[in-house]
């Protein structure tokens, strides 16, 4: 029994999941209908569905970020890429004669995604070919990217009136929010491709030592290109969802701070920033923890401005609980308990 418990506690997803359950419990106390999911007009409704839907953009970016971090990199430019992709899509829809036609929306989405591929290749070029440290390489696009997005929107907030585009953010398909379906597809595809093939292992080997993996025959450079491009692609999808949700592209605020949330989700999920080992499932839990936290702040009635303080608290608690120091202290405590129990048994 205690051996099973010890193995559970040692699992790297244990503390993040505990944190998620604690947040759920707080919500349930503050709002008894928290777990109720109802079907209204054929659509699923409820707090849990809201958490999934609002957390979808962060999760999608976090999936790309997980792979980048697994190569010992980091991508600070995802917020800017999200803003660019939203700006591109909205300006195309606004400029077309038939903004409500599905064909226009398809073209807008395709162009936005293609541009994100270019941006991803750019980041990959700086990191893989020029060998610039990832935090600085992506800082360039982070700074310049918002400027590019503003250039596309000409400094305005572009609002569009296009039901098919809006559906990306707030629509439903078979009763499930489309944003959640997109997130599930991205997550599933990334998990399948990297875990059912050797790709994930190659990514991890590049994270451990790019030079050694190159000499072992892994094409480190190509892999770096691929992960940065994939990360930018994910950021563009998230940008489309965020923009579609409000039906407006705001170059300054779309995806602001989302890179930090995504990195946080990855780290809460137990992926080390030192690279070489990653867990997509952990990232999923991490993203859920962050979104549930934001929702909790709203349900409990704390002023939303204080959200950042609570985020800091949760990050600190999860990191401290996951730390090897804590694990050692806990195992020492358990050993002492076991010794005491043993003695008690011997006396009686």
């Amino acid at each position: 029994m205690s051996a099973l418990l010890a193995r559970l506690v040692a699992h790297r997803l244990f503390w993040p999941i505990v944190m998620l359950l604690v947040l759920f419990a707080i919500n349930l106390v503050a709002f008894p209908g928290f777990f109720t999911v109802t079907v209204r007009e054929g659509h699923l409704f409820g707090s849990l569905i809201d958490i999934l839907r609002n957390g979808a953009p962060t999760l999608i970016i976090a999936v790309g970020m997980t792979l980048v971090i697994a190569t010992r990199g980091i991508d600070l430019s995802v917020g800017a890429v999200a803003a660019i992709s939203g700006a591109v899509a909205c300006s195309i829809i606004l400029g077309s004669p038939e903004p409500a036609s599905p064909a226009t929306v398809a073209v807008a989405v395709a162009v936005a995604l293609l541009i994100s591929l270019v941006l991803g290749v750019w980041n990959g070029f700086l990191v893989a070919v020029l060998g610039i440290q990832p935090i600085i390489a992506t800082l360039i696009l982070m700074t310049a990217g918002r400027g590019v997005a503003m250039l596309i929107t000409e400094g305005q907030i572009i609002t569009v009136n296009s039901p098919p585009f809006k559906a990306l953010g707030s629509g439903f398909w078979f009763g499930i929010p489309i944003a959640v379906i997109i997130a599930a597809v991205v997550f599933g595809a990334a998990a399948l491709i990297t875990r059912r093939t050797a790709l994930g292992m190659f990514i991890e080997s590049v994270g451990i030592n790019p030079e050694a993996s190159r000499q072992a025959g892994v094409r480190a450079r190509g892999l770096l290109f691929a992960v940065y491009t994939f990360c930018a692609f994910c950021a563009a999808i998230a940008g489309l969802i965020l923009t579609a949700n409000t039906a407006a592209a705001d170059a300054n605020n779309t995806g602001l701070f989302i890179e930090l949330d995504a990195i946080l989700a990855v780290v809460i999920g137990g992926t080390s920033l030192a690279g070489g080992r990653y867990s997509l499932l952990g990232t999923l839990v991490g993203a859920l923890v962050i979104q549930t936290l934001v929702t909790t702040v709203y349900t409990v009635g704390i002023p939303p401005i204080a959200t950042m303080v609570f985020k800091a608290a949760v990050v600190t608690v999860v990191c401290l609980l996951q730390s090897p120091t804590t694990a050692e202290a806990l195992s020492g405590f358990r050993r002492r308990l076991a010794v005491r129990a043993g003695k008690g048994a011997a006396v009686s």
Partner: protein
Amino acid sequence: MTKLLDAPARPGRAKRPAGPGQPGPSGRSLGSGIRALLTSPKYGPVTVTAVLFLAIFVIGGVRYRGFFSGQVFLNLLVDNAYLIVLAVGMTFVILTGGIDLSVGAVVALSGMIAASLLQTGWSPWTVIPLILVLTSVLGLLVGLMIHVFKVQPFIATLAAMFLARGLCYVISQSSISITDETFVQLAVARIPLGGGMSITPSVIIALVVVAIAVWVLHATRFGRTVYAIGGGEQSGLLMGLPVARTKVLVYVVSGFCSGLAGVLFTFYTLSGYPLTAIGTELDAIAAVVIGGTLLTGGYGFVLGSVLGVLVLGVIQTIITFEGTLSSWWTKIFIGALLLVFIILQRVLTARRR
């Protein structure tokens, strides 16, 4: 883990050019001496930065009327005094191989604390020390989290950033202006240097901080330990250096510098606003990196970081002199110049491989 493995190899490789096996720069012609200087991991990047800074300044002087003056240069210091102090603290952290993302938020928080306490009638001579103590304690907590609980610096300082930024909003959601007489006087005071040139008291404070930092890093045990940790923490431990204490202390130094920078920033803006200094941590990191300090730690100079700040400042000045750039072009321009700079630095120093 990999850092521990490859770190001890680096100092060995770096020392070789200075060793007895190869003649130093003096033994060869001037050309190869310059090449040795540029390709040395220790002096190369910072030399390139200095040359590029001069080049930008000369280009600006040729292109714009009135650019090539002492006051334009002094204004770089006046406008960026707080960033210099931030970059000094960040240099200590990055030299150990860490990073501090909280500095921008701490600058904003110091401003908010100063503005709100001064508003309720506190004396500035209590407020300023209080801010410095509080931000140092925050640095201490971050340092303990990193060292004792092995939390990655990026995440520990990200948490500190959220905390500081959140506390700003809790104090007030709108701007609080500062009307305290001492602060106002410090804000408008100019110290004449002759020839119509002048600086502010903030510049003197920043330069004193730089001088102390140079002394600490190059002439004290603490400074040597900072470099040793960046070169290889394990080796430092085996050499019996106080690794734990030093690693925690660099975050205290960074916290203190952020608090001081926050105070200097309020002298500059005379208000506290929760949204100020967003992204300043990245400016500070960029300045340190442009100044030739490796993000992996072990190599770099405080004076390099000061040069890095001046480079960022001169880019801003050029944009101001250009005058016609709209706000989005400014962002793109900064990004492009940063790129050109990093690539040039990369190309000029890459030959050591």
